[in-house]
């Protein structure tokens, strides 16, 4: 049991920090521009695919550096020539635009790279078990993912709180008009933040591609989970996104690890049930089965009862 908890904790943190890399960019974009970027996870997918192509010719490490930059540039272009243009039609149009973009990027990825899963592997020097605990391996690559994620978190924190750019961004988050009045080029800040956000998503894709598989559906699988994190964490709150990411990561791993069902709960109270009734699915429902719907349940509940999110101070 201890072994199970230990590894679930570790895996939960790895997943959570990976989610945070996506969520941090999204929450910054969301709080500044007020638009939830549906295509954010698509940039994560682009990161994985671009890095895969680069890694075939120049190796993993070049891909690790170059792919996020390329994806960030793509993001900046999308902001400059797409989102800013659509902005004139209003928020709903912006939301639909990013939705359409997500659809289009998936099609483009299939067009360029095909529909099958790509054999994108971790670099050879990271293909060893870092340590073995109770006979179970912890792959070095997972530790590498952990390190990169933590590094990004610290870097973001430092930039946002200690640098001048960070101050402007913080100001633009809370009072965009006032910041523009003070003479800062807010559209440029928007473009920059959008680009950096996409680059972070791309980086997440680069390091997640080998671990979670590089296939056309990878954006859809992760896309809505990231929304959940942003909303649950609270608008514009990096801390909130961090906590929510870890929460979701741990929630998902532990829900799988702990094999309890409604039936077990009922038996605690000495209630038995009819195995043939129409509600039999309800009684046999187990935690691993409902693990994937827990985040959405959380999303709906948070939106109903605490629209500001856990750490936010503005309503969504």
């Amino acid at each position, binding site marked *: 049991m201890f072994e199970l908890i230990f590894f679930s904790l570790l895996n939960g943190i790895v997943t959570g920090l990976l989610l945070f890399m996506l969520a941090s960019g999204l929450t910054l974009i969301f709080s500044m521009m007020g638009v939830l970027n549906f295509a954010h996870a698509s940039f994560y997918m682009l990161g994985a695919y671009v890095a895969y192509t680069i890694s075939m010719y120049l190796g993993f490490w070049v891909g690790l550096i170059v792919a996020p930059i390329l994806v960030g540039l793509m993001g900046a272009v999308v902001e400059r020539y797409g989102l800013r243009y659509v902005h004139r039609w209003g928020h709903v149009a912006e939301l639909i635009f990013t939705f359409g973009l997500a659809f289009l990027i998936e099609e483009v990825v299939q067009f360029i790279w095909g529909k099958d899963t790509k054999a994108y592997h971790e670099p050879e020097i990271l293909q060893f078990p870092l340590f073995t605990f109770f006979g179970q391996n912890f792959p070095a690559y997972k530790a590498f993912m952990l390190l990169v994620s933590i590094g990004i978190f610290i870097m973001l924190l430092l930039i946002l709180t200690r640098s001048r750019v960070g101050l402007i961004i913080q100001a633009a988050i809370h009072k965009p008009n006032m910041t523009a009045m003070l003479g800062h080029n807010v559209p440029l800040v928007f473009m920059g933040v959008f680009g950096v956000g996409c680059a972070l998503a791309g980086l997440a894709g680069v390091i997640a591609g080998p671990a979670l598989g590089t296939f056309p559906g990878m954006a859809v699988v992760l896309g809505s989970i990231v929304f959940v994190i942003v909303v649950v964490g609270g608008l514009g709150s990096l801390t909130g996104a961090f906590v929510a990411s870890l929460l979701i990561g741990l929630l998902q791993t532990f829900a*799988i690890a702990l094999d309890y069902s409604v039936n077990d709960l009922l038996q605690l109270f000495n209630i038995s049930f009819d195995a043939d009734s129409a509600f039999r699915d309800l009684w046999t429902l187990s935690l691993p089965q409902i693990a994937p719907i827990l985040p959405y349940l959380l999303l709906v509940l948070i939106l109903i009862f605490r629209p500001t999110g856990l750490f936010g101070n503005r309503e969504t």
Partner: protein
Amino acid sequence: MKLKSKILIGAAFAALSAFTAQAADTIKIAFIDPLSGPFAATGTNGYNQYQFAADVLVNQKGGVLGGQMFEVVGFDNKISPKESLVQLKRAIGEGIHFVVQGNSSGVAHALTDAIKKNNERNPEQRVLFMNYSAVDPALTNEDCNFWHFRFDANADIKMSALTDAIAAREDIKKVYIIGQDYSFGKAVAAAAVKFLGEKRPDIEIVGNELHPIGKVKDFTPYATKIRASEAGAVITGNWGADMVGLAKAIGDAGIDAPVYTYYAANDGITKTIGAAGKDKIRLVHEGRVNPPPTDEYKAYHMAFKERYPDSDISQFRIANVISMLAMAMEQAGSTDVVAVAKQLEGMEYTTMQGDKVYMRAEDHQLIQPVYISVHTDENVVLDADNSGYGLVTETTVSAEDAAIPPLGCKMERPS
């Protein structure tokens, strides 16, 4: 303007030639499977194999019934039951009477049901359904009908063979079952529990788990659980991305137990699993690859590789579908659906791999030998995904041993 009129003339000619081609005697076979979307890789490869089989096994030998050629027409169902019915309608509209499908038992259920209804409502547009890969046992048990023939071994037959192999290994004391949460995954789990209970009551089933299909991003938590359960073997019916993810996580966690699977090969999966699954991943399937059973098969395989260098013969049964259909037509002396179906019932046939198979008349399940192979890079003559890795057969279960009697199939036959 000039160019446009050229295009128009070209289009007109093409339409004309298409029309005349249709008028000639070809027997069309509708291939209804995913040709786009996430499962397109598997579907497209199946389509290639059908076209190749029709070409090599029928058309190059002069066709059937005095020179009628087979033509396999692809219909993209996007692996959706609804879209499959749309495509079925289209195929019927084009005057096609023979349908092949294989990916997803969900789709097969929808198709067999729709074909049964169609054949009752429109007797002049009857359709024969040759299922080459959907292995939910229900399709030949309680949901069987006269128009459905299955050429793959069903999940129960395969599980029976798998559990024989597991039962023979005295060192396995604990088994973990994991599968996708839908009819096929459940059928695999139920069969595993049943057969293990009969053959090796001492084996403890330490986990019987269903996960959402196609939604799991990271299988590491499942691998952790499997490891913590100290299972000596893992059984899974997973396919597609779910198979890749599971195999990867099991490899990463350093689980040494053998993994018994249904679909962990070809269409990119072998390449992705690579070294991580060597001597660990086992597959139950029909149709041997390594060592190549006959020279004829080897030549067939190589010829296919020459035409489609990126694909493999991943489903040997496709060749059986085409050959047996051609044979049934010859024996019936016509392409009438009922006559062909009656010939297929109980047909005995020797495959290119030298196996004797027969189509059991009671439930339309092809009875054939089943093999258990291991994923390795040693002694591989014909590899998969050009990866150097491939399947090498370890155990053979003869057709007689593999046959499981039909359960609850009540078939209404047309008079």
